[in-house]
């Protein structure tokens, strides 16, 4: 039977990691995989998480199942973090999931259960998993323009024009903040305009928010999500705790589904529970519990917020340094976009051939679509990276 399986295409980002690890060059630089690294190349456990883990070790008295959709304390803590008071929480149904990826998959499965057969619209480009999960679930996929490769900023005119084609009941996936892979984000005014357009089209927004706190700040990064949550009768949110709590391997994410009224919300909640049951019964709890403890304890929360803020401004620091070094190398401001982008990624706007040259000739690894991880840009490497980028003709 297994002989009839077809070979699956390898995940190119994970494949890149293997290539990097096998590269014997001392001076190699990893700007590939989407994991935060500090100046020493480590992905540390946040102080608050370590402290919560220690408290949990001392106080946790059972490992029996949590609720089918995860712990309600986690739901509420995450609702406060992501939605604040933008929407009445009795209209929100929750489900803890294995990571943000699990949450995306979960939302799309829930959409399938509605049997409304909508088109799911994604930005072009978007995170690769968005498209493959939707494809895996046999959903109709639509793409809307997002990024202007010339200016390396949001092509808002083209985005609006494409989104004017969405149909009533279609799902429109928006990155809540820190767009992956481009780093180019909507302004507040643009969020407002998009929300008006989608309301008029009676489309349903689906926000993927995986980097809250990495862009402009914890509250600022939730602006678009809260704006829409406040306006739309129905909406989906997939939030990840991997990056902003640094608990990647714990697989901690959450679905928030906003229904028209509390009665429907109860049915939605039951369906979220059903989807979990069919997939894996109970979601992982350890990461969710740590996140809840950090968010609910004033001291832990303050420490978490301050460590996250350090990570955020450290990346902005690296962005400005890289933009300035590139100014020096190419004697123009055409890389200033790096300083204006937000989040862990920026798309450089290079060809795959140029990306390959960076890897082969300079040992600089970035994703084939020229997405680079800013967290890999340490100050001692800024000049090397800038010189190489100009050398290969980007």
């Amino acid at each position, binding site marked *: 039977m297994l002989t009839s399986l077809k070979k699956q295409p390898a995940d190119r980002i994970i494949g890149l990691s293997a290539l990097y690890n096998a590269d014997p060059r001392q001076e190699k630089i990893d700007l590939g995989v989407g994991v935060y690294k500090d100046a020493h190349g480590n992905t540390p456990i946040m102080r608050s998480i370590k402290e919560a883990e220690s408290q949990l070790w001392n106080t946790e008295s059972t490992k029996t199942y949590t609720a089918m959709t995860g712990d309600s304390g986690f739901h509420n803590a995450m609702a406060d973090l992501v939605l604040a008071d933008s929407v009445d929480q009795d209209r929100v149904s929750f489900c803890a999931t294995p990571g943000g990826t699990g949450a995306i998959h979960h939302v799309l499965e829930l959409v399938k259960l509605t049997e409304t057969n909508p088109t799911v619209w994604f930005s072009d480009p978007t995170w690769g998993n968005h498209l493959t999960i939707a494809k895996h679930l046999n959903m109709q996929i639509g793409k809307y323009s997002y990024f202007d490769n010339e200016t390396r900023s949001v092509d808002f005119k083209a985005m609006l024009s494409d989104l004017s084609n969405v149909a009533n009941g279609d799902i429109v996936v928006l990155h809540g903040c820190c767009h992956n892979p481009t780093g180019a984000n909507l302004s507040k005014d643009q969020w407002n305009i998009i929300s008006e357009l989608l309301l008029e089209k009676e489309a349903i927004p689906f926000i993927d928010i995986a980097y809250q706190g990495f862009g402009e700040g914890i509250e600022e990064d939730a602006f678009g999500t809260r704006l829409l949550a406040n306006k739309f009768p129905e909406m989906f949110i997939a939030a990840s705790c991997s990056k902003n709590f640094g608990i990647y391997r714990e697989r901690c994410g959450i679905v928030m589904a906003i229904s028209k009224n509390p009665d429907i919300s109860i049915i939605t909640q039951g369906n979220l529970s059903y989807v979990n049951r069919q997939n894996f019964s109970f979601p992982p709890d350890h990461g969710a519990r740590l996140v809840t403890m950090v968010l609910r304890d004033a001291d832990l929360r303050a420490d978490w917020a301050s460590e996250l803020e350090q990570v955020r401004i450290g990346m902005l620091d690296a962005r400005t340094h890289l933009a300035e*070094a590139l100014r020096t190398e190419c004697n123009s401001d055409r890389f*200033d976009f790096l300083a204006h982008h937000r989040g862990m990624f920026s798309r450089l706007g290079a060809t795959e051939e140029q990306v390959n040259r960076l890897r082969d000739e300079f040992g600089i690894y970035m994703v084939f679509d020229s997405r680079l991880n800013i967290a890999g840009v340490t100050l001692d490497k800024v000049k090397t990276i800038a010189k190489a980028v100009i050398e290969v003709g980007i």
Partner: protein
Amino acid sequence: MQVTVTTDWLEKNHQTVKILDASWYLPSEGRNTFNEFKSKHIPNAQFFDIDVISDKNSHLPHMLPSPSSFNDQVEKLGISNNVKLIIYDTDGLFSAARVWWMFKVMGHIEVFILDGGLPKWISENRPISNDHYKAQRGIFKSSLMPSTVVDIPQILETTAQIIDARHPKRFSGEAPEPRINLRSGHIPNSINIFYKSLLNKQNCLRPKSELLSIFLNAGIDLNKPIITSCGSGVTASIIILALKQLDHIQTALYDGSWSEWGLRDDLPIATN
């Protein structure tokens, strides 16, 4: 990186930029720089006072303010994130470097020093104004670059080269400090490069080749991190300006400088 613009360039492009007079002198010189500004400045310039736009909670002179306070104050000067800033002072090059550095620390890329400052501008008979207006408020959001400013614990731990911009006699401890209650000497293992040595007779930054040889002769490795220090963070900014002219990357300023280090009996000190 480009750190200066010429007087010629500014006269041609003055409509597209925001100009700041950043003049400041040691209190002992007894100059009222704001009155000087009001009577004579480059047209459309605003006055940036490093003693006012500073950390009001610090006992040390003109320390870097918080990003939010900086935002508020520069917005009042009509500055927004998208403007190109040109900074000058009435000395040629002195405190303008400090203001240039402050904007750099706050993540502003488009900030440049007017080469030769007001003296060169005037000597070339370019337009001058006494017409001071209140700017229309700008929208400015800092993105602080924490790697570019260091404090005492970081100095005590650092492996970076430390350059002290003060006069050699102050560095060696032979000459007294201009501020009271300060010990004399320097941070152990720091290297003295008097800021004046980086300037020519007109107080313009020397050409790159000359700057390079000054740093190399002082034993500085330009491929390694550098921290600059001085009396109160003003002339240390001139060293940074010169280093940036030479495309140095890992450059930070010790904001407390000798005003802080010299005051603290618990910190190590070296003389000669």
